[in-house]
């Protein structure tokens, strides 16, 4: 069988580099890893057939250095580069530089990335293609009376947003018409001080929105298919923490409708390869286009579990010019899949980063469990990169089954040496509102108890018992005779010595 490529370089690190390397090896494609100073001993370096050092730990001088990565590809004779997610994955300049160097970039064409990367342009493109966007205005006039008429036309509540915006700056929710003038002034002032540009516009405020996204993949021969939706409404500070497929709220009719919208959105942008079309779903059931993520997503495994399609292999084949491995009408969704992102953050200290050395690790196993990780016992998680350690993915015959499996898998998972988000995930899996599928992006704000530390009534007793034994063993190994307790020799100490292990 002819290989799609004779060698693939993976321009990433951590769990996603391992994930891509696994797909290549299953296809019989030799792999090249790249690594920074901090990653010499990383799992992706150990897994790949070849590995090339590309610079210091700071990612701008290594994983974001286009020249160094292309040099590594040329030096090792790699035919194609898979960028993973993050780093250079959505950088059209990198995709162009690959093409100029005669290397295939496994991802969308740079022109499509550019069209979708600019939010104002993407919004206009989608409106033209007939994909619904959140109703809104262009830049607002200076005259507040005109603005009031625009707001009324959209319908309250409305959202004031800064044109140059980001990070919630210059953003205000307006519930009633009488609040509009003062909130407009506030938003303009904040936009001016934050971005040096006071331009603001209005958008309809979507209440209790759910984040629902559709996976698409297109080949170079004009075929685009959608692989169902994922719901990613459990977020903290706009970071997804838990994802699932299918969404508990999407029925087959809706799935077909938003799937068709996603295909239309991708086609409008001239999209090729794997991508994700993100929608907001309002409490009234309407869907609005948000943006396209022009890359493989962190949460792609839940789609793989329910469709049986390996998205990374499909990306590699499509990049080599092959056709999609199946037409839309042969796609079947089976069961339900969930993913929990395990991050090196401490839920007991407001999710503060907790990089450090993993002293021991046991990954969950057994029926319906998939573990995509990038760490091992003895590995030191560097301070330079994002905190993701692994993703636990479960697949069950239905949602309840997948949740029960996840709860069980999280009980088995052990990562010693650093605090992780595991305790948070365990609580979510047992939370009635999550089990009921009553999700929206404000879920964690509505249930702040989930962000608090675990309550384990037995913990104190267990912890003191275990610490006492560990302390005893430590003193025992450093002193020939255990420290006296000041009350003389107890009746069972002598008996105890008989049992000392040698």
């Amino acid at each position, binding site marked *: 069988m002819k290989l799609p490529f004779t060698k693939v370089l993976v321009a990433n690190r951590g769990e996603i580099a391992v994930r891509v390397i696994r797909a290549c090896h299953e296809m019989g494609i030799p792999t090249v890893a790249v690594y920074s100073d901090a990653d010499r001993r990383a799992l992706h370096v150990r897994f790949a057939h070849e590995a090339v050092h590309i610079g210091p730990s700071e990612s701008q001088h290594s994983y974001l250095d286009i020249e160094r990565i292309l040099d590594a590809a040329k030096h090792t004779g790699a035919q194609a580069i898979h960028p993973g997610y993050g780093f250079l994955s959505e950088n059209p300049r990198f995709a162009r530089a690959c093409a100029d160097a005669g290397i295939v970039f496994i991802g969308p064409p740079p022109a499509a990335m550019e069209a979708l990367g600019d939010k104002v342009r993407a919004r206009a493109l989608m409106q033209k293609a007939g994909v619904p966007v959140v109703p809104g205005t262009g830049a607002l006039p200076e005259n507040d009376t005109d603005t009031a008429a625009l707001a009324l036309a959209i319908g309250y509540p409305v959202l004031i947003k800064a044109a140059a915006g980001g990070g919630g700056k210059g953003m205000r929710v307006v519930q009633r018409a009488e609040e509009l003038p003062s909130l407009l002034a506030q938003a303009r002032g904040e936009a001016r001080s934050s971005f040096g540009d006071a331009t603001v516009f209005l958008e309809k405020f979507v209440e209790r929105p759910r984040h629902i996204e559709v996976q698409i993949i297109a080949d170079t021969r004009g075929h685009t298919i959608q692989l169902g939706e994922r719901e990613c409404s459990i977020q903290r500070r706009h970071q997804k923490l838990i994802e699932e497929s299918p969404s508990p709220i999407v029925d087959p009719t809706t799935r077909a409708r938003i799937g068709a919208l996603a295909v239309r959105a991708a086609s409008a942008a001239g999209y090729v390869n794997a991508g994700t079309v993100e929608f907001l779903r309002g409490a009234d059931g309407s869907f609005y286009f948000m943006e396209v993520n022009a890359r493989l997503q962190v949460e792609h495994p839940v789609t793989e579990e329910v469709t049986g399609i390996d998205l990374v292999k499909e990306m590699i084949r499509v990049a080599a010019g092959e056709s999609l491995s199946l037409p839309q009408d042969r796609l079947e969704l089976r069961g339900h899949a969930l993913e929990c992102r395990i991050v090196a953050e401490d839920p007991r200290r407001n999710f503060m*980063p907790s*990089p*450090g050395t993993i002293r021991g690790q046991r990954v969950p196993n057994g029926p319906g469990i998939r573990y995509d990780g990038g760490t091992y016992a003895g590995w030191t998680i560097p*301070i330079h990169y994002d905190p993701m350690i692994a993703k636990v993915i479960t697949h069950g015959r239905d949602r309840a089954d997948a949740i029960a499996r996840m709860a069980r898998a999280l009980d088995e998972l052990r990562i010693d*040496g650093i605090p992780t988000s595991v305790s948070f995930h365990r609580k979510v899996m047992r939370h009635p509102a999550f089990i009921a599928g009553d999700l929206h992006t404000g879920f964690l704000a509505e249930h702040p108890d989930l962000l608090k530390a675990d309550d384990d009534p037995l913990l104190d007793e267990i912890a*003191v018992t275990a*610490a006492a034994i560990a302390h005893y063993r430590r003193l025992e190994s450093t002193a020939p005779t255990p420290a006296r307790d000041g009350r003389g020799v107890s009746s069972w100490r002598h*008996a105890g010595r008989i049992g000392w292990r040698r």
Partner: protein
Amino acid sequence: MKFSARAGSAVHEVVVERDNGHYVVEIDGVRRVVDAQKLEADFYTILDLGDSRSYEVSVEPRGDGYIVRHGAAECEVVVSDPSRRAREAGPVGTGPLTVSASMPGKVVRVLVVAGGTVQAGQGLIVVEAMKMENEIAAPRAGRVKHVAVAAGQTVESGVALVEIE
């Protein structure tokens, strides 16, 4: 062997002895016989021979105590013998105080200089890790005696950053 163990805010009196390969652990007068086997690094399987409970824990030494993890729950247990506890029970809130890094990372900003005065809660040092900045604040008011780090420097968790007097 007798010592005290602080878990959360509670201090427990603990006596541990060996007995026939098992451990006899007495916590605040309640005696348990347990079979504790160390499996790897910091990892134990523990069987309570009284009620047959089986559980796994990791016990990681840290400072004067241990971080114990059971399932996803975590508890710090600080162990001390009675004499050390007496030494440590000095007056609180006065005297020199070392502020140390609460997470490993890179120092991105130093907000104070030696000789300056600080209020309680005032930011001292900003440490960055994993694209997140964390401002370390003064636990109480005082004069900055010494700043031990500079911007750009990488620090480990627990490393002294600033000394306040």
